[in-house]
């Protein structure tokens, strides 16, 4: 049925004929009879990657197919969401190998964007933990691929934004954990230099990321809080935690009921928020043991927090710059400060190496993610930032993108032509296409 849909940024929104399916035969029927479509998971990408006039939504295709509790091998259909996986695997002492900052995404989406987490510098992207997967191609035939079987299809599907076909079944490796708790350390950094130093100092930690206050000038420029952690060993738990070291966190969430008026977000409120956030940690260093929930998914406690940005929506801008290009980071943060285009959620992380990367976003360097409410002048400003990102040898994350130009993609991804030719091989007539793939000339 046709309805208006949008992804997490609520920008852009469009009318789409969204189809759901539960069974393989239904899916194959739909694909055979659709003129064009794009796979869609839980719509947690921010922009237009899983948007099109016809979308094939996997959310009802969400069954667990096998779970080897000895070896941590998990197999499921592509519409299963990470929060449901956690409920099953955590009590058995396993965790997701890689998880983004929200657990409300599907496994298909985790592969489509080849997502990264706080452990990228240690464990890489989600795709690196996939054993094999089934994909239904544009001609409705099915292929099983893995890093060694149809490797081109496998590589182009990890981070390929759904353009090679509909992933149906996925088998991947979980990570063994000693408890469901995280021993975390929060460190305040007075400015960007200190923050970057902290990343270097604590790089042996499996999980790390930092929040930056982007509106500070002078010697507080780029101040922030770094959070690092490891899964806690049983002996590091307190008495009550030790009673059930693999307990699932209690479910508690607050829903933002409606779109906030857009005037609520302005430089003043961002400044106030950042001030409170920075100063809530009175001590320079905090050490504690928490459940995995607030550590990995702090924002999931606020359902529909995207409504804070109002009806017009927002875009997230995430780029990566090589380690050597620290000035690039400074340059970009300065421009944001100067424009007063403040953003609540500025997240900094250092990526590790990403071997044999065809189309996945990460490479070794700094990655910064910022939210900007849609308003006049924003797109011109982001074009300006694009030029800076390119100048310093960086690129943007397609999964967050709603507006970059095709030249920007081309300049940032050296193997783009190879990716396109694999897409053409498996999706020859561009039957599988999205608003994004058309905009970025991947399917035109």
């Amino acid at each position, binding site marked *: *049925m046709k309805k208006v849909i949008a992804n997490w940024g609520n920008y852009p929104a469009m009318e789409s004929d969204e189809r*759901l399916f*539960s*069974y*393989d*035969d239904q899916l194959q029927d739909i694909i055979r009879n659709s003129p064009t479509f794009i796979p869609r998971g839980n719509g947690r990408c921010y922009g237009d990657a899983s948007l099109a006039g016809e979308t094939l939504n996997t959310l*009802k295709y969400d*069954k*667990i*197919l*096998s*779970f080897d509790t000895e070896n941590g091998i998990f197999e499921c*259909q592509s519409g299963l969401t990470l929060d449901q996986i956690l*409920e*099953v695997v955590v009590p058995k002492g396993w965790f997701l190998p890689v998880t983004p900052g929200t657990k409300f995404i599907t496994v298909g989406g985790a592969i489509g964007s080849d997502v990264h987490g706080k452990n990228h510098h240690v464990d890489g992207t989600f795709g690196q933990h996939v054993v094999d997967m089934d994909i239904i191609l544009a001609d409705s035939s099915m292929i099983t691929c893995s890093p060694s079987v149809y490797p081109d299809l496998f590589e182009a599907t990890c981070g390929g934004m759904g353009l090679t076909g509909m992933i149906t079944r996925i088998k991947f490796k979980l990570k063994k954990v000693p408890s469901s708790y995280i021993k975390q350390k929060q460190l305040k950094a007075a400015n960007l230099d200190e923050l970057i130093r902290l990343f270097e100092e604590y790089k042996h930690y499996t999980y790390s990321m930092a929040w930056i206050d982007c509106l500070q000038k002078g010697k507080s420029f780029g101040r922030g809080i770094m959070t690092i952690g490891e899964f806690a060993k049983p002996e590091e738990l307190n008495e009550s935690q030790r009673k059930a070291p693999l307990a699932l966190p209690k479910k508690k969430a607050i829903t933002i009921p409606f779109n906030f008026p857009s005037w609520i977000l302005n430089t003043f409120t961002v400044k106030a928020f950042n001030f409170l956030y920075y100063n809530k940690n009175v001590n320079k260093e905090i050490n504690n043991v928490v459940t995995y929930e607030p550590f990995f998914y702090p924002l999931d406690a606020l359902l529909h927090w995207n409504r804070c940005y109002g009806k017009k929506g927002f875009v997230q801008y995430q780029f990566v710059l090589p380690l050597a290009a620290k000035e690039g980071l400074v340059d970009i943060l300065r421009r944001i400060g100067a424009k007063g285009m403040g953003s609540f959620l500025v997240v900094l992380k250092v990526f590790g190496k990403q071997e044999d990367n065809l189309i996945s976003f990460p490479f070794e360097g700094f990655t910064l993610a910022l939210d900007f409410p849609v308003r006049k002048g924003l797109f011109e400003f982001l074009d300006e930032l694009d030029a800076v990102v390119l100048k310093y040898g960086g690129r943007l994350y397609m999964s967050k993108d709603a507006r970059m130009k095709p030249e920007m993609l081309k300049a940032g991804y050296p193997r783009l032509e190879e990716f396109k030719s694999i897409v053409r091989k498996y999706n020859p007539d561009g039957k599988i296409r999205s608003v994004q793939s058309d905009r970025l000339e991947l399917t035109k």
Partner: protein
Amino acid sequence: MPTVLILGAASDMAVAIAKKYASKGFNVQLAARNPSRLQALQSDLNIRYNINCTLHEFDALNYESHQAFFDRLAPKPDQTICVFGYLGDNETARTNWSESAKIIHTNYTGAVSILNVVSNYYASQKSGIIVGISSVAGERGRQSNYLYGSAKAGFTAYLSGLRNRMFHENVHVASIQPGFVYTAMTANMKLPPLLTAKPEDVANTVFKAATKKKNTVYVKWFWRWIMLIIKSVPEFMFKKLKL
């Protein structure tokens, strides 16, 4: 561990019901025309809820097979939920007998045939619970779906008679009256969001009706009142409406 039998197990509503029962520790017997399709659901229920789920071939329209189908079940289910149904196309059915017959026989004859078998067994055991999913469409015939509606009306009357008989055999029979529900059956209809239930709502209602021994339950309470109003419109006026 108790066991539940779900008849017509491939639909969205049935999947939600199966999950609900499995989450409460029931072993689940899934019966459908094409059980091999349900292998993914089977592994899912087994892994998530650590229960035993089995698959069984069942066609509501193959009446002769019903006794043998039930005899083969081991163990016999403690509860039986009759979920299958067929909306069909009323306009086609007006001139096409096979469509009319399919609507009548899926919603009424087939349900009666299998529930006769099940209820006789439960009566002999002096225990058991039967839940039938009927529809508010059976409470008053409307021009847009009176074939489906009349078959469901028959089914509703069958369930209330069965409830009366089985009460004396220590067997409970519950009738569920969903209004609108978001499922594959209604995927192409524009439904009013405030009045429309999710399959999970139906599942919760079914489970509650079975455990709390409720007789007739509407999914979303206000449907009882909506139907009361609809039923109280005098026929001379009702027949003029375009419903």
